[in-house]
């Protein structure tokens, strides 16, 4: 009997278990996306943090040096930064609150069938389609105190005696720009909420009606809870955008008069592209990042709650 012939050779042990291979393959599929995200999101953030620790004024390359938290100390002592932060609260919440209210109202209107609804829906989108720089220029012209149509209209109708300098008066400049932003951002809420309204099954309203619910009860107990996920997502997203986007302000007032409409993102741009102080601009961007991370955490917390409700 050949003993050797009867013994089966032991198969070499696999380097990784099947489950591990599967997990590795899955990570490999994610790798291209991770590399792209890392290269376009993570690296710039790390670079900005790195830049914020240096004195880096482009017109003074000889002064380039590591200053640790020097730029952050400067921010704390910079009254314009604190003013801009205060302004950004008025700007962001003033804009988003009214965009939401008016957007919701228009969405409710457009959800009701009537003749020409398609045309109204298309027209409603126009402010959102127009680039914000163009919106800024249009409103700058509308508000022009000497030859703008708004003062002309108010003057002709007898509501105004002396021309009002909408963008040159520090008490009026911010409300005037917020109004322009409301006009621009309202369609975003209208579209989102209209999509949500159309996704609510008619049977729920029918059941509520059969149970004796009136218009306001149906709105409070059916429409609002069903729209909650969309309201939360769109409001938080729009809040982040508004906080982060200085384009309207930059075009209409440049942050003036006397910094009355300055917000941190506009201030960062001024530091980077007018003062060419990239170290300080980078530290301002890092502060903006931290503020927006708080928003994002709030967003994630709120949307998690939403998922549970929806589930």
């Amino acid at each position: 009997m050949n003993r050797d012939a009867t013994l089966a050779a032991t198969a070499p042990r696999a380097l990784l278990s099947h489950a591990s291979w599967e997990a590795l393959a899955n990570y490999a599929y994610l790798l291209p996306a991770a590399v792209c995200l890392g290269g376009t999101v993570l690296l710039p953030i790390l670079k900005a943090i790195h830049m914020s620790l240096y004195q880096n004024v482009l017109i003074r390359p000889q002064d380039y040096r590591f200053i640790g938290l020097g730029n952050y100390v400067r921010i704390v002592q910079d009254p314009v930064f604190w003013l801009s932060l205060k302004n950004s609260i008025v700007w962001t919440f003033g804009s988003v609150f009214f965009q939401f209210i008016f957007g919701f109202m228009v969405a409710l209107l457009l959800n009701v069938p009537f003749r020409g609804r398609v045309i109204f829906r298309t027209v409603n989108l126009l402010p959102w389609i127009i680039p914000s720089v163009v919106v800024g220029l249009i409103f700058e012209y509308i508000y022009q105190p000497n030859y703008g149509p708004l003062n002309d209209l108010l003057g002709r109708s007898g509501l105004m005696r002396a021309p009002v300098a909408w963008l040159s008066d520090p008490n009026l400049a911010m409300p005037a720009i917020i109004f322009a932003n409301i006009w621009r951002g309202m369609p975003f809420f209208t579209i989102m909420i209209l999509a949500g309204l159309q996704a609510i099954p008619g049977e729920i309203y029918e059941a509520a009606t059969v149970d004796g619910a009136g218009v306001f009860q149906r709105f409070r107990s059916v429409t609002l809870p069903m729209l909650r996920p969309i309201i939360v997502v769109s409001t938080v997203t729009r809040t982040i955008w508004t906080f982060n986007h200085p384009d309207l302000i930059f075009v209409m007032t440049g942050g003036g008069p006397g910094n009355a409409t300055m917000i941190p993102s506009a201030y960062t741009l001024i530091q980077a592209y007018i003062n060419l102080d990239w170290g300080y601009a980078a530290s301002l961007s890092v502060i903006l990042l931290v503020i927006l991370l708080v928003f994002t955490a709030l967003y994630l917390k709120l949307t998690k709650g939403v998922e549970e409700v929806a589930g």
Partner: protein
Amino acid sequence: MKNDDSYASRRQFLRTLAASGAIAVSDLAWLEAPYLSPRKAHAATTVRFEFYINEPARYAVVQSLVDRFNKSQSDVEVKVEFVPQTQAHQKLITAINAKNPPDCCQMWDQWLGEFVGLDALEDLTERVKGWKFYPSTTPTAWQALTVKGGIFALPLSITTEAIYFRPDRVKEYGLRMPDENWTWDDFLALAKGMTKPEKNQYGFGMRGAGKWAVPYATAFMYGNGAQVLKDGKVVINSPEAVSALEWYIDLFRRWKVTPPSVPTDGFRQIVQGFSRGITNMYFHNSGSVEEQKKAIGAERFATVPMPIGPAKKRSAFYFCETLVMFKASKNKEGVWKFLTYMMEDEQHYQFTKVAGNLPTRPSLSGQPPFNEAPYSGFVKSFPFAIVSPYLTYAGWGGKLESEGMPLLQQALLGQISPKECLDKWADVLTKNMV
């Protein structure tokens, strides 16, 4: 708001149309000449030239000049890159930091100190001193282009500031016509007399926004004996400066001879305010003369030097558009050939005519349109004009807009006093003397 001046009669309209047509035809013939015959340059080395555009007319004339140069050369070919003026400064700084600047470019004189500080520009002193037009170029141009004892640019055009005004309205309201010896009191009387809010008209279009808001206010301060620097020390918060700024701000706050939009009025607003007949005076360089000729007609406006201040002084700042060569260029001979070509009589004259600034050689600035009425205020201002004191330190350039402008706006709005404004401004300047 209705404005009678914005309506032209049919005859006026037809006359303007015919005149514009004639100008367009003659200009087009000159501008398009290089396209009429094929180019001659073969196997030429390339020169990258950046030019900053703030109006379409400049694009046409510069493109034509470059094409003419290329047609005349066999060994050098210029490739022109047009960049919007608002992005020019930042793009150039970024290109220098990335070690990829163009070979040469057009540059405003107020940037020179900054770029010399970056060690990016070629010192042209030796070449310039041997250049055939060096002796005949106005000395003030060389003064504006000298940084740390070296000449770093060729003067493409030069101008200074003056007051634009409406003689027809001065007559209409029975006021005294300004002359070159007028004073601040005359200026205020004229501004008050030409302020008619019921007609939506204001005496003076003041600039409260943009990079030039502070230098314009400073030019008035010099009329009261103020200075920015004295013995190497910032003295822009001197009593003379404070008193002058109080007077200047009173034009807006107390006398209300300016439009209510002053705190946010930049270049475009002051120029358009005048061309729309809303303001009857404004302070600017000659760069808007051609625009006003088209908008309201050469016969309906004139220019006059800055009024004389209480200290029996007055001032205006030079403004020079320049051509520079970059140190990093690998074809310096080709660049020099192109830059000097642009400064030849015909090219220099054609460019300045379109730009509305003055040629830098008296032989050319004595020709039409520069010897005509709309330019006379600028020509008369040259004897007392000075190089802008804000060119002294490279670190001051960006601060004019980022810190000086908000301070001036706050003073205009009454949030801070003129003294506080100048104390803070002096502090900013002192900290940035680099």
